[in-house]
């Protein structure tokens, strides 16, 4: 089997598993909203990885846009329009607008400086959400609202009462986002991002305006991470200020690295491992994070290309 066939086979397998997840997850001791959680966090990690794994730029502040998506969706539904789809749209617009502005300010920075500044901007939003009690709910988070059934005119989808219906709404959003990112990465524009990752100097002297292309990559990444944030708020019927904090950003980086940041599906695997470990270990002990930390250290030490990188290497080619 050649490389292209293998890739198609892997894609088909992933989509079949995702499409049928609500029907086998319960049998394995899971539950449908756990599946939704995997998908939402996987979308966030894959969006981050568009920037990290395929452009070579490390952001440690993606939680800011994830959280803005969450608060954008929650506050829209709570204060403005009781509509789930409007909430998602507003969440994405808010996150994307902030990312566009902040991106313009930081796009000249590289490496550790870029990462530090993304943390700093993220913390700004965290403190706003944390302090502005009357609007954001402060430390308690934004509650007192819930996702609402979607009325399409000819039919009504009860995403509130039916966990499976909500799972498939998330899956549709996930599929659209992932398809767009995959197509972008195979376009000439996507290849300029790979070029920047591989060798920024060469890219520049090939005639690629590197800062501009990094800005676009950052923006695309933040559009989808805001979408993930909006879906995450809908999943929980709640927006948490911790969604904006730097340790949430760190979780996304961990998921991407854990699964394998050079592979397209890697962050999905990473998010699945992260969420399942969190769900299982946190029911046994409060110190679940130390187990994830230990697991992460082992993966980075022994399989620097992540779990998927390991699978690739051991598979006969």
């Amino acid at each position: 089997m050649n490389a292209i066939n293998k890739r198609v086979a892997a894609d088909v397998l992933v989509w079949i598993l995702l499409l049928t997840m609500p029907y086998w997850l319960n049998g394995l001791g899971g539950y449908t909203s756990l599946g939704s959680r995997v998908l939402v966090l996987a979308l966030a990690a894959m969006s981050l990885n568009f920037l990290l794994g395929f452009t070579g730029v490390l952001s440690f502040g993606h939680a800011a846009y994830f959280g803005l998506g969450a608060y954008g969706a929650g506050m829209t539904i709570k204060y403005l329009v009781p509509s789930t789809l409007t909430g998602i749209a507003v969440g994405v617009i808010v996150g994307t607008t902030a990312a566009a502005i902040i991106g313009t300010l930081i796009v000249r920075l590289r490496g550790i400086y870029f990462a530090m500044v993304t943390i700093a901007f993220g913390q700004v939003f965290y403190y706003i959400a944390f302090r502005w009690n009357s609007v954001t709910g402060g430390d308690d988070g934004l509650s007192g609202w819930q996702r609402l059934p979607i009325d399409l005119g000819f039919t009504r989808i009860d995403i509130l009462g039916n966990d499976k219906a909500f799972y498939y709404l998330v899956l549709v959003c996930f599929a659209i986002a992932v398809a767009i990112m995959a197509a972008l990465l195979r376009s000439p524009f996507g290849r300029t991002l790979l070029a920047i990752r591989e060798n920024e100097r060469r890219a520049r002297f090939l005639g690629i305006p590197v800062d501009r292309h990094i800005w676009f990559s950052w923006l695309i990444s933040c559009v989808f991470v805001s979408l993930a944030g909006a879906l995450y708020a809908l999943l929980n019927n709640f927006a948490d200020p911790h969604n904006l904090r730097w340790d949430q950003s760190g979780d996304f980086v961990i998921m991407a690295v854990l699964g394998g940041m050079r592979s397209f599906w890697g962050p999905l695997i990473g998010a699945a491992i992260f969420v399942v470990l969190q769900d299982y270990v946190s029911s046994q002990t409060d110190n679940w994070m130390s187990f994830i930390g230990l697991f992460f250290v082992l993966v980075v030490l022994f399989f620097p290309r992540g779990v998927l990188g390991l699978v690739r290497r051991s598979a006969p080619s």
Partner: protein
Amino acid sequence: MSLLQVENVSKHFGNLVAVDGVSMTVEAGELRAIIGPNGAGKTTFFNLISGFLTPTAGYILFDGEDVTHMLPARRVWRGIARTFQVTEIFPELTVRENLRIAIEVAAGYRMRAWISPEADGKVRARVDGLPMSGLTSKAERQVGELSHGDQRATEIMVALALKPRLLLLDEPTAGMGERETYKITQLIHKLHRDQKMTIVLIEHDMRVVFHLADRIMVLAEGHLLAEGTPQEIAANEAVQAAYLGQAA
């Protein structure tokens, strides 16, 4: 009008004067070599032309246009391509992918965010049309896995894929063995003779320089020491004293 006109450029790094008031005029179709002892400012001078650095004083015209402070990417769009003293390529991509990216950027597709089978076909044909200089059998290999000589050859191919009007080569044969040096020299010779490509190269190997160059410019300690045909340079006493004398 000359293709490249460098007027009296200087580059200071704090108190260090790396390039001190050097001028150079290159005509279209010319092959110019820059030689000089280590630390003479050759690479800094190259960096000023390609936009990696901007001069402290002086100006640079390319095809009549002032490019002194222009960003590197814009200079590439106008037709200035370069290679580096230490090979700069995309190591985890294949030779073909390296060339493909260069061709797509040169074709103006760099912002094209969709997949076009028609454009892909054109790009593929152009990749296949490049002189691969012995790399054909290695086109699907990752460049990072290839030998030093093949990596440097790939970098030159990538620069050529941009269809430059001025090609800047910084020590193209550095670290190469006899056979590889010969192959690269032949390639440069053919580009110059058959395609009338304008080339400026920095080179330490004097056989390569005297075999290829129409004119030679000698730098020493940031100054222009001499300039002329290979015969004139070979006969120049100041050059012999400062540079060739050392080698002999």
